[in-house]
């Protein structure tokens, strides 16, 4: 997609989001969560660029969410909790990354899956600390010391998510265009050759991993602050699958894809669940199947009229 088309699409998207949030107040919550999830998926996209599918990325979102839930009673300030959650997830990403970037393909995916399942069961089993599957309620938070009324609070969270989404999308664009970002695609095509060129492939991947974990943490924090309730389900492997789902649904070729995908995903989910309560998963699965079979470029691919192109290709 050309630069201008992408900028135009971003502007249109922002306008559409703000208009919908204003015209349909009941969707404000859904859209905020969608933007937050899109942020998490954006991080996942960096790893996909290197051809690595993390099947446990939801653990970083869960980590960010639980950081907010645990710290909120003592520090009920949005502008402190959000960076703190992102930072903590980033540190966790560094520690886990040091271990997992040594592995590729199925082993990379499965190790991430294993670690996220470990985190999941810690959250689920240690009831005394985490309240198990009941989850933890997040108390109302202040924003820059103020205690806004509910509607203002909703708007602030929406604006925060939107601003962060735009900022990160721009950052990711610049990063992917940089030599570090280009090297990621090299890991996918032929890592050995990259090393022959003197590029430390593992460190390149580690950097991307830490970035993606940080974005995941911020996404999780936003979700916790918006939904005001966190459960271990956030870290379960199906949540990680959902993130990959959103990435492919939106299209992995552009930094806008994750947000488009997340908005579509959440809207389909909300309406499918309302229409057929027992079969919303089936409908989402059907949508996913249709996208992969008939428009492998994702929604972004359809919009830019290149539906035939495969996502995460050597763009």
């Amino acid at each position: 997609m050309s630069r201008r088309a992408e900028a135009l699409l971003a502007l249109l998207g922002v306008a559409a989001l703000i208009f919908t949030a204003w015209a349909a107040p009941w969707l404000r919550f859904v859209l905020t969560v969608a933007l937050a999830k899109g942020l998490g998926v954006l991080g996942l996209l960096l790893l996909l660029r290197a051809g690595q599918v993390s099947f446990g990325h939801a653990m970083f979102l869960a980590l960010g969410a639980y950081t907010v839930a645990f710290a909120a009673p003592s520090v009920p300030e949005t502008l402190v909790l959000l960076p703190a959650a992102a930072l903590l997830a980033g540190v966790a990403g560094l520690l886990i990354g040091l271990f997992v970037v040594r592995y590729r393909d199925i082993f990379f995916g499965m190790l991430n899956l294993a670690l996220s399942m470990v985190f999941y069961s810690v959250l689920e089993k240690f009831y005394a600390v985490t309240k198990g599957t009941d989850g933890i309620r997040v108390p109302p938070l202040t924003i820059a010391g103020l205690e806004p009324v509910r509607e203002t609070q909703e708007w602030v969270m929406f604006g925060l998510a939107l601003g962060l989404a735009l900022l990160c999308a721009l950052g990711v664009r610049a990063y992917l265009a940089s030599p570090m970002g280009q090297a990621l695609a090299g890991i996918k095509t032929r890592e050995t050759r990259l090393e022959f060129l003197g590029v430390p492939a593992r460190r390149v991947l580690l950097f991307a991993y830490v970035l993606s974990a940080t974005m995941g943490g911020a996404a999780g924090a936003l979700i916790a602050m918006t939904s005001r309730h966190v459960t271990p389900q956030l870290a379960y492997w199906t949540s990680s699958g959902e993130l990959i789902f959103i990435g492919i649904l939106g299209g992995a070729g552009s930094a806008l894809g994750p947000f488009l995908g997340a908005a579509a995903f959440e809207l389909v989910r909300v309406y499918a669940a309302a229409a057929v309560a027992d079969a919303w998963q089936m409908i989402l699965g059907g949508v996913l199947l249709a996208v992969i079979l008939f428009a492998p470029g994702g929604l972004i691919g359809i919009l830019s009229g290149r539906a035939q192109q495969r996502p995460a290709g050597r763009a």
Partner: protein
Amino acid sequence: MGEWFAENGLLLGLAGLDGLAYAALVFMVAVGLNLVFGVLRIVNVAHGSLFAIGAYTAASIGLFFTAQGLPPAAGYAALLLGAALVGGVLGPLIERVVLRRVYGYEDVLQLLVTFALFMILEDMQKLVWGVQPVFQDSPMKALGTVEVPFGDDTIPFTAYQLFVLPGVAVATLIGLAWFLRRTLTGRVIVAVTTDKEAATAMGIDAVRVTLLTFTFGAALAALGGALASPTTSLVPGIGASTIVLSFAVVATAGLGQIEGAALTSLLIGMGRSAAVYFAPELEVVVPYLIMVAVLLVRPQGLFGVVEARRV
């Protein structure tokens, strides 16, 4: 140590027996997953759904048989019938209608296709069997319990879990090893696993082999589910928890190793069941801890072969 053993010895014995029965079930699922990955190079997330649907189908057929007044032994026919039905119908259906279209695609898309199938099958299962637990244990009751001698004591344990489950798993292991190494069809499957292009160039019909392997793998998963059905109440979510566990087994064992998958199933089954009795809060974690520990030392898995790096 001696004191601890006197106190917990029986528990340890029980954990061992439980672990054996559990390992047998895990093996049935993991070996099918491994086989399918070998030929299709797709991590089949929907494999766990086949396990779950196999379990539900077998239980339903069993309940139907009981309602018809057939003897409890007919429950065994129900198990086999359920597995054959699910493997024989869903297996070819999934491979031909969906998977065949995405073989040229990227790994992540192939993985997601099976994730989509998983979501669809998961809801389908809820629509057909509901969310209330389904319970049908006549095959297990038919065999009664055995007093297993353990030191000075005996441990009562169901004969089904003691003989049938490990028996079927061992038979599967031996049968599969024989099939893959000694029969023409088996060797063709191994050939396609090793190098699909070379095998095709030698005149092997890879399309047919793929269909065959997937159906076979699906049947193994369904049989695993059918065998598990008498030992537990069937609830939504068993497919999801089964598949992640067999992922752990396959990754720990390394790819393409049947005997390795068997030993790893045993290791993980025993580890998990020890956790159930001695540290219940670790029950879910243990398989993954084993996997992480193994991959830390042996990045290609316990029995995996290091692949040469291509330039």
